């Protein structure tokens, strides 16, 4: 229950560029699992953000400039400013039963994937990570993953500013051939996750875990704004991580989402 009550913390470190920043807060010891998220409330604007870093004491959220809230946070929030944090919320990636992971983060979907890789390396589980982004600077916050022995990390950028050019999905085949992957974890644009999943399905039938994003008003499972058609599941409380096999039974997966007023918007 305590995780549902908002508490405010001072941001003590801000990294990143003008398009995307990572904000850090000292929250002490909390039980947080990769895939979970927080509602972040800055100056009366609130949105859900995945945990992109947690070391047992400090938590980090990586925020991409997209619309009003994120613009407001990125342009105005400075070290010493308070954010209201509600969380951790939602479920998490299944990790216990697996030993060799393929992780794919597209765009700001890199945030939870970064934390997941950090976490897996800490418990010495092998993980191959593919990050895809518009431009390489948006992935800067993930670079230190390369120093982990358990992790192999590759980058794909649209603008050829990083390691590899092209879609992040290009890297999948090679890894699946080289590694005995026993689960795949995805977070990013739904179109990307669908292309990736279909590609993976051709090679292997390991479970594919997908972190979803939907418009959230409450983040705690009661307002109904994040529910998936027709499966009736709440992304905030039943997700955000769903099994691919379940997700493809939802008629909106990859096709549409709802906006703040509940109206359908096609992808």
């Amino acid at each position: 229950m305590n995780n549902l009550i908002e508490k405010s913390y001072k941001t003590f470190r801000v990294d990143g560029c003008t398009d995307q920043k990572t904000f850090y807060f000292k929250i002490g010891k909390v039980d947080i699992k990769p895939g979970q998220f927080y509602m972040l409330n800055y100056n009366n604007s609130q949105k859900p953000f995945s945990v992109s870093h947690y070391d047992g004491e400090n938590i980090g959220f990586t925020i991409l400039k997209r619309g009003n809230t994120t613009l407001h946070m990125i342009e105005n929030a400075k070290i010493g400013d308070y954010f209201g944090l509600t969380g951790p919320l939602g479920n998490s990636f299944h990790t216990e039963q697996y030993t060799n992971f393929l992780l794919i983060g597209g765009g700001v979907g890199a945030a939870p994937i970064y934390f997941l890789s950090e976490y897996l390396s800490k418990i010495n589980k092998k993980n191959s990570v593919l990050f895809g982004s518009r431009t390489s600077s948006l992935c800067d916050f993930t670079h230190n993953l390369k120093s982990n022995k358990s992790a192999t990390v590759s980058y794909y950028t649209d603008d050829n500013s990083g390691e590899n050019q092209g879609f992040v999905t290009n890297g999948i085949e090679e890894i699946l051939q080289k590694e005995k992957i026993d689960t795949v974890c995805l977070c990013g644009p739904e179109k990307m996750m669908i292309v990736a999943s279909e590609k993976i399905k051709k090679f292997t039938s390991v479970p594919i875990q997908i972190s979803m994003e939907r418009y959230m008003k409450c983040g705690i499972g009661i307002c109904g704004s994040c529910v998936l058609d027709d499966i009736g599941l709440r992304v905030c409380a039943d997700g955000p991580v769903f099994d691919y096999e379940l997700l493809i039974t939802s008629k909106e997966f990859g096709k549409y989402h709802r906006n703040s007023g509940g109206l359908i918007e096609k992808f």
Partner: protein
Amino acid sequence: MTHTIKFAGVNFNRNGVLASGILGVTGSSMIKTAQGGAGGITCKSISKNFRKGHPTPVLQVFKHGVINAVGLSSTGVDNSNNELRNVKNNSDAVVIASVFGGTEIEFKETIEELDSSVYDIIELNISCPNVADEFGHAFANSPHSASNVMRIARSATNKPIIVKLSPNYPNIGLIAKACEDAGADGITAINTVGPGMLIDINTFQPKLTNKVGGVSGPAILPIAIRAVYDIYKAVTIPIIGMGGITEVEDAIQMIAVGAQLYGVGTGILYHGIDIFNTINTGIDEYLREKNLQYDDLVGIVHKQ
């Protein structure tokens, strides 16, 4: 309760009702909640035109409940028709269409634009405390204004109409009576209490963008029990009793003071949508133990 209960002429297969505004935006979550054991499903209050609602944060949890100011967001009637049709076609729950209007006429027009085949009962939400800046006092503030809305709404549909009342104005019994006299087929009580406010002690800002929000959840149970008690004394039409119910004992208290059906909203936060199945099973067991019929329990406090 797993046998049929008649409420305002409509048969409910189970005696729990999903409160308006909770998981009531899309058909799919309403269907899911019916599977969780709700016998009636109230959708988020529908307004004639699209309403965005207040900007987030619109809801904050405190130790004893929730304050919310969703601000009556609504997709408007057209979309609501589709979502409700989905519920109507894909669940055995009674569909209660909650409607909201800024004027009496808007209530009427909204009901008229609703496809009458997609709902079983209309609920008039005249008691939302979260749009006071926009609309001033809720119509539920006096017998006169409440019954006016009821009277005008009456001409818009042949289906039963129930009125949702607020605990934030004195004499809820008198207001219920005025609604009954104006033709209401039932009463829903209570809407949220207060409103309330919570402050962040680091930023000194109210924790909701709307500053204030209605209080719901376990904190308000005694107020809801008292309100339903008062209403039962004042009217003969049936009552959906809600406000703070999280456990079977709460629902039994609510029924005992006069609720024909119990409602749950915020309780879902603590126990998920299965709360309906849990409470229904609990009530069945309780009735068996006490050797009571459901109908004997309704309003039994008044017969002591």
